[in-house]
C-alpha cells in the first residue's frame, strides 16, 4: 500500500515512544503515612483527573456481611462531617466536576475530574469522603434501596446472571471471587449503620494507598495539594486476610439459569487465571489477544461471529488483577445456538492448545498491543489509569517504555504453553442464562 505522500518524516512508533510517560517525567513521592503520590503534567488539556485507591474491599468482609464494602463506599459519598449530601454535590456539580468511589475485591478506587483550577476543591472533597464520612441515617436507607433495586434488576438480566453464576462455579466458597461484591438481598437488609462505621474505621487508611493526578497542573504544585489534603491522615488499618489462590478446575461445572420473558442467551466459559504479577500474565495476555481480542475479537470473533453468524458479541479476556482473576469467554447468542456456540468455543480452545499460532498471527497481535499504546494514553484518564496500574502491581515507572520489547519477546511456544497451562476445554466453568421456553426439555 502507498504511504501517504505528504506524511511527516519519522516513524510513528519512534515518535510515540519518545512521548510515553516514564521516570523522567512522572513525579513520584511517598508520604510518611504510606500514601504514594504520582503526578504527570499535560498542559495541552484544560482538565485535571485524579485517580487512586485505598486498600479496603470485599476481601475484608465477613460472610454474613457480603456487600458491606460496597455499601460502605456508597454511603461514604453521601455526606461528611464537613459537608452534608447537598453541600458535597452543590460544590462539585456547580462547576461541572465529578467524583466517585467504587469498591472492588481488594481495593476501593476513587476518581475525580474537573477543569484544572478545580483541583484543590476536588482533593478536599475526596479527603472529606475518604477520611470524614458521616454515614447519615437517611442516606443509608436510600443507598440500601438503590442496592436492592440493583440486585432485583440483576435477577432479571441474563448478562449479569451468567456472570454471577460463573464466579460461583469457577471459585470455591472460601475464595472472595466466589461471592458477589454487590452482596445479596439478605445480607444487604441485615447491614446496620454500626457495620458501615466500623468497616470504614477498620479498613480505610493511607497505608499503601495511591493517588494519581494528571492534567494541566504543575507537578510540584499538584503534589503539594495532595499532601495538604492527605498528609496528616494517620489512621492505620486492621490486618487483612491475604488473597487465597484458586484451585484449577478438575471437572466440568455447568449452570443453566432460565429467566422469564427474555429472547437472548448469555454465555460465560472460563477458568481461574493468573494474577497480574504472575510471570505467565503477559504471555496469557498476548495469547488472549490472538484468541479473542485482536481486530473484531480474534479467532473467536472471526470464526463464531463472522463465519458462522452465531453471536452478536463474543470475546475473551484475561483479567489479571490482584488475585487469580478469571480467563473467560463471553458471548451473546440466539437461544437456539447456545450448544453449537459452546462446541465451537471448545474447538477454538483446543486449536490454540494443539497447534502453534502462526508467526504472522503472533506478530499481528504484538504489533496491535504495542502500537495501540499511544491511543490508550491519549486522554488524562488513560494516563491516570496506566499510572495507577503501574503503582498497584509494582511494574516500575518506566513500564510503558519497556512494554514494547516485553510484548515482542513472547514466542509462539509461550502462547501454546500458557494456553495448555491455563485453558482446558474439558474442565471448564460454563454459565448460561437463557430464556425460559428454550431450555425446557434440555439437560
Amino acid at each position, binding site marked *: 500500500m502507498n504511504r501517504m505522500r505528504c506524511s511527516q518524516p519519522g516513524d510513528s512508533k519512534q515518535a510515540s515512544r519518545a*512521548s510515553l510517560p516514564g521516570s523522567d517525567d512522572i513525579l513520584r513521592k511517598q508520604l510518611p503515612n504510606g500514601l504514594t503520590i504520582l503526578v504527570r503534567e499535560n498542559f495541552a488539556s484544560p482538565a485535571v483527573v485524579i485517580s487512586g485507591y485505598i486498600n479496603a474491599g470485599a476481601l475484608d468482609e465477613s460472610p454474613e456481611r457480603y456487600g458491606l464494602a460496597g455499601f460502605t463506599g456508597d454511603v461514604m459519598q453521601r455526606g461528611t462531617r464537613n459537608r452534608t449530601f447537598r453541600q458535597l454535590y452543590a460544590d*462539585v456539580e456547580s462547576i461541572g466536576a465529578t467524583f466517585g468511589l467504587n469498591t472492588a475485591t481488594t481495593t476501593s478506587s476513587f476518581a475525580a475530574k474537573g477543569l484544572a483550577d478545580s483541583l484543590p476543591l476536588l482533593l478536599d472533597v475526596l479527603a472529606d469522603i475518604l477520611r470524614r464520612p458521616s454515614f447519615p441515617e437517611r442516606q443509608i436507607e*436510600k443507598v440500601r434501596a438503590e442496592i436492592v433495586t440493583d440486585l432485583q434488576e440483576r435477577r432479571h*438480566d441474563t*448478562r449479569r446472571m451468567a456472570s454471577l453464576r460463573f464466579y460461583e462455579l469457577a471459585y470455591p466458597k472460601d475464595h472472595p471471587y466466589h461471592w458477589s461484591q454487590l452482596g445479596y438481598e439478605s445480607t444487604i437488609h441485615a447491614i446496620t449503620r454500626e457495620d458501615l462505621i466500623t468497616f470504614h474505621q477498620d479498613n480505610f487508611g493511607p497505608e499503601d494507598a495511591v493517588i494519581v493526578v494528571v492534567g494541566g497542573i504543575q507537578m510540584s504544585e499538584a503534589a503539594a495539594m495532595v499532601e495538604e489534603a492527605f498528609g496528616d491522615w494517620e489512621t492505620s488499618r486492621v490486618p487483612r486476610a491475604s488473597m487465597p489462590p484458586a484451585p484449577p478446575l478438575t471437572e466440568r461445572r455447568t*449452570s*443453566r439459569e432460565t*429467566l422469564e*420473558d427474555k429472547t437472548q442467551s448469555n454465555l460465560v466459559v472460563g477458568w481461574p487465571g493468573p494474577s497480574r504479577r504472575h510471570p505467565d500474565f503477559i504471555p496469557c495476555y498476548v495469547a488472549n489477544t490472538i484468541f479473542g481480542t485482536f481486530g473484531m475479537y480474534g479467532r473467536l470473533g472471526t470464526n463464531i461471529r463472522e463465519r458462522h453468524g452465531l453471536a452478536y458479541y463474543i470475546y475473551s479476556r484475561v483479567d489479571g488483577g490482584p488475585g487469580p482473576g478469571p480467563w473467560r469467554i463471553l458471548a451473546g447468542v440466539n437461544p437456539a445456538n447456545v450448544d453449537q456456540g459452546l462446541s465451537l468455543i471448545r474447538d477454538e480452545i483446543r486449536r490454540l492448545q494443539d497447534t502453534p499460532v502462526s508467526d504472522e498471527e503472533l506478530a499481528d497481535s504484538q504489533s496491535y498491543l504495542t502500537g495501540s499504546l499511544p491511543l490508550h494514553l491519549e*486522554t488524562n484518564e488513560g494516563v491516570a489509569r496506566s499510572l495507577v496500574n503501574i503503582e498497584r502491581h509494582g511494574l516500575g515507572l518506566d513500564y510503558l517504555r519497556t512494554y514494547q520489547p516485553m510484548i515482542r519477546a513472547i514466542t509462539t511456544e509461550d502462547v501454546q504453553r500458557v494456553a495448555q497451562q491455563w485453558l482446558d476445554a474439558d474442565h471448564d466453568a460454563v454459565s448460561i442464562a437463557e430464556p425460559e421456553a428454550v431450555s425446557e426439555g434440555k439437560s
Partner: protein
Amino acid sequence: MNKPHPPFADVRYVALDNGLKVFAQRSATAPVVSLWVWYRVGTRNEHPGITGVSHWVEHMLFKGTDRWPSGRADQVISREGGVYNGMTWQDFTTYYETLPVDRLELALDLESDRMQNAAFREEEVNSERTVIISERQGHENSPHFLLSEEVIAAAYRVHPYGHETIGHLCDLRAMTADDLQRHYAMYYTPNNAVIAVAGALDPDVIIERIADIFEAIPKGRPVPPVHLVEPPQRGERRVQINGAGQTNYVQIAYHIPQAVHEDFHALTVLNAILSGGSGFIVGRGRITNYTSRLYGALVEGELAVSVHGSLAPTVDPGLYTIIATVWPGRAHADVEARLSEEIDRLHQEKVTQEEIEQAKRQAKALFAFSSESISHQAFWLGFSSIFADTDWLTSYLTSLERITVEDVQRVAQTYLIPDNRTVGWYLAQTPQRQTTR
C-alpha cells in the same frame, strides 16, 4: 510546553466537486489521527418494511470488498495499533479509524473503497441476519429498551424517528440482499457524505490528499428528501409494557424542536436544571445529578431510586425524555404526579439565576471533556455538520451563554405540556419462575 487551546478554533473546510464535504483540524496532543466518514442516512430514511436497513448496511460494510477482502481491514488496522468501528443512529451512519499519525493513508484507502464497492453477497447477508437478530434480542432482554421502543412508537405516528435503529424483527427476518444493496446505492455517495479528520497533521495537506483520493468517485443522484413531518400532538398518549422483573420504570417523552431551532439551547439548559447536565453521545452521563430538581423531588423524596433526562441534536424534531426507576414498593402514579409537579413549577416560576449559571458552567466543563481526545474532536466536527454546521459547534457555548431565565420558562410552557407528551409505564410482573440447574 503546550498551551491549552480551544478545540475547533481553526477548522478547515472544503466541498469537493462531487459534493463531498471535508473538515480537518490540527490537533497535536497525541501522535494520532482520527478519520470519520459520515453518511446522511439512518432511521430517518427508513420506512416500514425496511426498518433497520441502515444499521444492517453498516454491518455489511465490515464484510469486505475485492480490494479489502473480509478480515483484511481488521488485520491491517489492528496491527498498526489502530481502532475502527461504525455507528448508526437517527440521522447518520458513520465509520471511523483512529491510527498512528503516519498511517492515515490506510483509512483513506479503506473508506474510499467502501464508499463504492461494498458487496452484499446473499450468504453473507444471511449470516449477518442472525447476528443482527441476536443484537435485537440482546436489546429486548432489557426493560429499558422495551419501554423506550414503545414510547417512541407512540410519540411518532408519521415520522420515521418512531422506530428504533435496530429495526422491527419482522423486517430483519424479511429484508433481502437487494434491499440492502438498493439502500447502499442510494445513500453512499460523495454528495451525501461528510469526512472529518483531526490529528497531528497539517489540515491543508490532509484536505489535499482527501481530494486526490475521493474526487475520482462520481457524484451520485440526489438522495430522496424526507418529506414526513410529525403533526402536532393534540393530547397525552399513554403506553404500558408488562414484563418480567421486580423493578418498575416511568418514562415521559416530549416533542422538542430540531438542533438548529432557536429553542434547542434553552431546552439544553432546562434539562440541566431539571435532571442534571449531560453531554451528547460522547462523554454523556459523566457527572452526577444530585443537585438537580428531579433528583431532589423524586429520589430525595423516596419515590424513585434514580432519574435521568436526555435530549439530542437531530435534523428533524426530536424528543426530550425523562426516565425514572421507581423506588421499591412505590407506585408509578406517584412518581408521575411528582414529576408533573416539577414540570408545572417550571411553567409557574422562573428558575433562579444561580441554576442557570450552574447549567452553563456544567456545559462548559462537559464540552471540554467531550472534545478532549482527538477521536472525539473528529466526531464532533462530523456530527455537528449532519444536523447543523460547524458554526453550531463553535458557537455552542456562546449560544448557551445567552439563555435567560425567561427563555427556560418559555420553552417549558411551549413544549413541556401534557398534550405534547407520551407517558410510558413498565409494570414488572411477579411472581417469578426463575430456576437454576
